[in-house]
C-alpha cells in the first residue's frame, strides 16, 4: 500500500508540473492551450538525443532540454497565441490543436514513430523501515514540493509574480495601471511550457516515449485543471495530487481503469460545480 501512495505522489507531481502551465495560460489569457502537448513531448525528445550525447549525465541533459524548449514555446506564443487574445474559445482550441498536430508530425519526421526506451537514471533504492523505494520517484515528489514552494514565493514576493496574480483577478484593472500585461502573459506562457517540459523530462524514464505521449497526459492535466479550478494555483496543486492518488489506487485494483477513473471524478465534479467559461 505504501508503494501505491508513493506512485500516486509521483503521478501527482508530474500532473502538477504540466497542469500549472495550463492553469496559468487559461487564467490569464483565456486560451485552452493544446500546444502544451508539443512542449511536453519536445522536451522528452530533446532529452533522448542529449542523453545519448552526454553519456550518463542525465541531470545536465535534462536541464539543457528544458532550456531548449523555451525558444520553441516563445515562437508559439509570439506567432499563434498572441493572435488569439480575445478570440472565442473554439478558435483558440482549434488553433493550438493545429500547432500540436504540426509539432507531433515534426517529431515523427525527425525521430520516427517507434517508441524509445529510457531507463531510470538513478536506479538505486531507498530503504526505509525494511521497505525499498525507488529513489528516482522520491526525488520527483521532492522536486514537486520544492517547485510548489518556489512558485508560491515567486507569485507572492516578486513583482512579476504579483502582476500575474493581479492579472488573474482582473486583467483590465492591471492594464489601467499602465502595465503592459501582454509581456507578462508571454513570460507566464514560457514558464508554463518550461514546466511542462520539466514534467516530461522527469516522467520520461518511467513511462513509454512515443510521439503521441503528450495527448493522454494532457487530457489528465485538463481534468486536474478543471477539478482544481481554472487559474487557481493552490487548487491545481491539491487536485493534481488528489487525482494522482486516484489513479494509483485504481491502478492497484484495476490497472486499465486508472485514467478513466480520473475522467469519472472530473465528470462528478462538473456535475456538482459546473464551470462557466
Amino acid at each position, binding site marked *: 500500500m505504501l508503494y501505491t501512495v508513493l506512485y500516486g505522489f509521483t503521478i501527482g507531481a508530474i500532473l502538477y508540473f504540466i497542469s500549472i502551465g495550463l492553469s496559468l495560460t487559461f487564467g490569464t489569457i483565456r486560451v485552452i492551450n493544446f500546444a502544451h502537448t508539443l512542449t511536453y513531448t519536445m522536451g522528452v525528445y530533446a532529452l533522448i538525443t542529449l542523453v545519448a550525447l552526454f553519456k550518463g549525465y542525465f541531470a545536465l541533459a535534462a536541464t539543457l532540454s528544458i532550456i531548449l524548449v523555451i525558444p520553441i514555446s516563445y515562437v508559439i506564443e509570439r506567432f499563434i497565441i498572441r493572435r488569439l487574445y480575445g*478570440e472565442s474559445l473554439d478558435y483558440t482550441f482549434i488553433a493550438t*490543436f493545429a500547432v500540436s498536430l504540426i509539432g507531433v508530425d515534426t517529431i515523427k519526421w525527425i525521430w520516427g514513430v517507434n517508441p524509445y526506451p529510457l531507463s531510470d537514471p538513478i536506479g538505486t533504492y531507498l530503504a526505509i523501515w525494511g521497505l525499498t523505494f525507488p529513489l528516482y520517484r522520491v526525488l520527483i515528489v521532492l522536486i514537486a514540493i520544492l517547485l510548489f514552494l518556489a512558485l508560491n514565493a515567486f507569485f507572492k514576493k516578486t513583482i512579476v509574480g504579483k502582476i500575474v496574480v493581479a492579472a488573474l483577478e482582473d486583467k483590465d484593472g492591471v492594464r489601467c495601471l499602465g502595465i503592459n500585461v501582454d509581456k507578462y502573459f508571454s513570460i507566464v506562457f514560457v514558464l508554463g511550457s518550461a514546466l511542462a517540459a520539466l514534467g516530461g523530462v522527469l516522467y520520461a524514464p518511467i513511462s513509454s516515449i512515443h510521439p503521441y505521449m503528450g495527448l493522454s497526459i494532457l487530457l489528465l492535466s485538463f481534468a486536474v485543471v478543471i477539478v482544481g479550478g481554472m487559474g487557481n494555483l493552490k487548487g491545481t496543486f491539491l487536485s493534481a495530487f488528489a487525482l494522482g492518488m486516484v489513479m494509483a489506487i485504481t491502478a492497484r485494483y484495476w490497472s486499465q481503469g486508472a485514467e478513466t477513473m480520473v475522467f469519472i471524478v472530473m465528470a462528478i465534479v462538473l456535475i456538482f460545480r459546473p464551470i462557466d467559461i
Partner: protein
Amino acid sequence: MKSEESTLNKVPPSHANDLNAYPMKERGFINFLVITAGFLLITPILSVHRVTDFMIFCIFVMSFDLMYGYMGRLSFGHMLFLGTGAYCSGLFIRYISGNPLLAILMGTFMAGLLAMLIGLVIVRTTGACFSLINLAFNQIGFFLVLSPLRGITRGEDGFGVRVSSFGFFNFANTTFKFWFVLLCLLLVFYLLKRVTTSPYGILIRSIKEDETRVKFLGYNTFFYKWLTFVLAGGVGGLAGTLSALNYNFVNPNMMDVHSNVGVVFASLIGGAGNLYGALVGGVVYMLISNFLPIYIHRWEMFLGFSLLIIVFKFRKGVWGNIQDIWEYIQKRKGAPRLPA
C-alpha cells in the same frame, strides 16, 4: 464575457441564418435534386464504394454541424457517437439478428440513448469545458470497448459484421448500398433542414449568440441544448451504423479520439452553421484525406497548417465564400440572393 462579445463582433453572422427569405417548401425539392446530382456526378470520377464512404462522412459532419455551427458548442468527442452507433449495430447483428434495418435502428437508438444520458451532464457546460468533457467521455468510451468489454467487442482486433439480406435490402450489393446511403443522407438533410428552420432552430441559434438573453425570455435553455445534443448524437450514431454496414467491420478506430480533428476540420473548411457547408466540407475533407497522403507524406502537418489558415484567414469556409461571391453577383444584377 469579454471574449464572447468580441466573438460576436468578429464572426460575421452567416446569411444562411436569414429565415424568412426562403421557406422550406418552395426550395426543398430542388435541394434534394442538387445534392443527388452532385454525388452522382462525382461517382464516375471516384468509385461507388468511395462515394458511399463520403456520404456517410457527410451525414456525420452534418450532425456535428448541428451542435457546433448552429448551437455554437464545439465538441471534441463526437466520434463517441459514431463509435457507439457502429458498435451497437455491429453487436446486434453479431449476437441477436442479422436484420440490417433493425440493426440501423438499434445503433441510432443506442447512440441517442447514450447522448440522452451523458447529455444531462455535458450540456451544463459551455465553451472549452464542453469540448474537454466530450473529449473525456470519448476517451472513456474508447477505453471501454478496448479493454473491459473485450469479451464481446474483441478489443483492438474488432469484428466482422455479416448482414443477411432482407427482402430487397441486399447490403452485399454496392449499388444498393450507395442508393440506401444517399437516401439516408437526403433524409437527414431534410430532417435537419426542417429542424434548423423551425422556431426551435431559431432558438438554438439564439443560444449560440447569447444564452443569457434567451433565458431572460423565459425559455428553458437547458432542455433545448439537451435536445440538440441528443439529436446530434442520434444522427452521429446513424452515420456509425452505416459505416459499420459499409465496411462490414467494426474496430476501435471508429471511436478514436484523434479522429475528431477530421470532423472539426471538415465542418470548418465547408463553413460552419450551414448544412450545404457541411456537405461541401465533408466531401472536400474526404478528397483531401483520401488522395493527399499519396502525394504528400507529411499529412498531419498539412492538416495543422490548413487549420491555422482557416482559423486566421478563412473563417467562413468554402461555402461561405461561394455565398459571398454569389451575393456580389446578385447585387450587381439587383436580383434576390442565393437560398441557403
